[in-house]
């Protein structure tokens, strides 16, 4: 008897391929119990419990500030100034303009203006440290702790530096 052209597959076999694809996807996010923050979108509220908070019963209520970190970056210094500007001017990302005037962009007056940062010829290591953790220079610095709290990645910081260095 010739083999029939139409294959009759059991429902389980039909589901096996997409199920395996989904499992790969889940494996890729293994360990990620909570929502992943997409920079530029609101920070997932439940993730904020990872940091110190105003609460008496949650564990974050007992957390303190992150330790002060001195950093030394010896990698390639290339950065994308356009991406840096996106980071610096986005309230839901770097939010730099809340406090700083930026190259070709208005900002708050709480912090030194960075409109002409490129003319200051600041050492690269100094600028990197200021962004990663400014408390190395002043323990009570107002500057957000971009490094220790993983607000910005190394690449993000390189891009922001490239952007502010365009300021003339």
């Amino acid at each position, binding site marked *: 008897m010739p083999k029939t052209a139409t294959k009759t597959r059991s429902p389980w*076999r039909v589901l*096996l*391929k997409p199920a*395996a*694809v989904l499992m*790969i*996807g889940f494996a*890729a996010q293994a360990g990620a119990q909570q929502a992943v923050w997409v920079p530029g979108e609101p*920070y997932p*509220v439940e993730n*904020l*419990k990872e*940091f*110190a*908070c*105003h*609460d*008496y019963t*949650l564990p*974050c*209520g007992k957390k*303190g*500030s*992150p*330790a*002060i*970190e*001195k*950093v*030394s*970056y*010896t*990698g*390639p210094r290339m950065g994308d100034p356009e991406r840096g500007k996106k980071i610096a001017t986005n*309230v839901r990302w770097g*939010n730099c*303009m*809340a*406090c700083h005037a930026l190259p070709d962009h208005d900002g*708050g*007056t*709480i912090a030194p203006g960075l409109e002409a940062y490129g003319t200051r010829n600041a050492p690269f290591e100094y600028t990197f440290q200021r962004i990663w953790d400014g*408390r*190395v220079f002043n*323990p*009570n610095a*107002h500057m*957000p*702790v971009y*490094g*220790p*709290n993983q*607000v910005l*990645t*190394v*690449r993000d910081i*390189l891009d922001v530096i490239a952007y502010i260095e365009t300021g003339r």
Partner: protein
Amino acid sequence: MRIRALTPLIFSSLAVMMTGGLQAEELVSHLERTIVGPGPDHWPNRELTVPHVSGDEKFTNSYQFWKDKDAVAEAKKQGKMSHEVNFKDFRWIERSFEADGLASRGEELFKAPNENGQSCATCHGENGAKIVDAQARYPAFNKRLGRVVTMPTQVATCAKERLGKPWVENTKENSLLALYIARLADGRPVSVDVSNGEMKTSYERGRDLFFKRTGHFNFACASCHTPPTAGNFLRGQRPTTFFGDAAQYPVYHFPYQLAGDDLEYLFTLQHQIKSCQSLSRMYPGEEGSPPMTDIEVFLRASANGFPISAPVAFYNLDAEYLE
């Protein structure tokens, strides 16, 4: 199961994941991080705070220009600009007729009888005669409940136990009643007693929370609400210190009307705290909870001696200022 068919899919997914992962990994591998010490958990200067509005002297030294309406008028005559008087000149002191409509809705709730014919007025008097100054004295320690409660929590408790109404904190009814109760005390100076006992402990805990560095950015409330930040531009807004403003809450937040429920622009004080927390990437507190109550105690006590103005609108449009 034929794995062959899936192989290209598996490898291409892995390739995509690994390429993105490798780039970030490579940059981070050139970064050396050394811990040099613990970060301060609190913003400095909380030892300078006192539970009275005049405490602002130690922070901005502008209290003499805005301590009451006459002082504000005098400051304007002298040509003082808003930022020279800690922005306390035009924001709060004038009443708002838009907000008055909301307070009247609160009055209706106050008088509306439930199925047993009982209303808030039954116990508290027609037109709130028996609680005209309550707003000035709250938050307060409730002996029966055994804890410090804010006015919205007191309203929620009374509503549930006496009238069988589910008007918990941050509901429309609760906020409208809170505004009406605030209007009853209009003009009276805030007098929250934090001199001893549970109220004193609550004030100190609230003060420490206000100065505690929290959240994604590691800001304290005090980071922005004390000088030098208070007085400068933060985005397009200008923060002020924490002295005095609590006297005007609940506040009609007109320019910030949000979509959805038509009362989202009536801000109780804890709603305001929660809004600030959300903007600053701090985990937002629960209204009526002990930590939020403690922060409210700290803020209201920091308005002691300052007259209640209710109902007012946030950024009230006082035309005089524009000239």
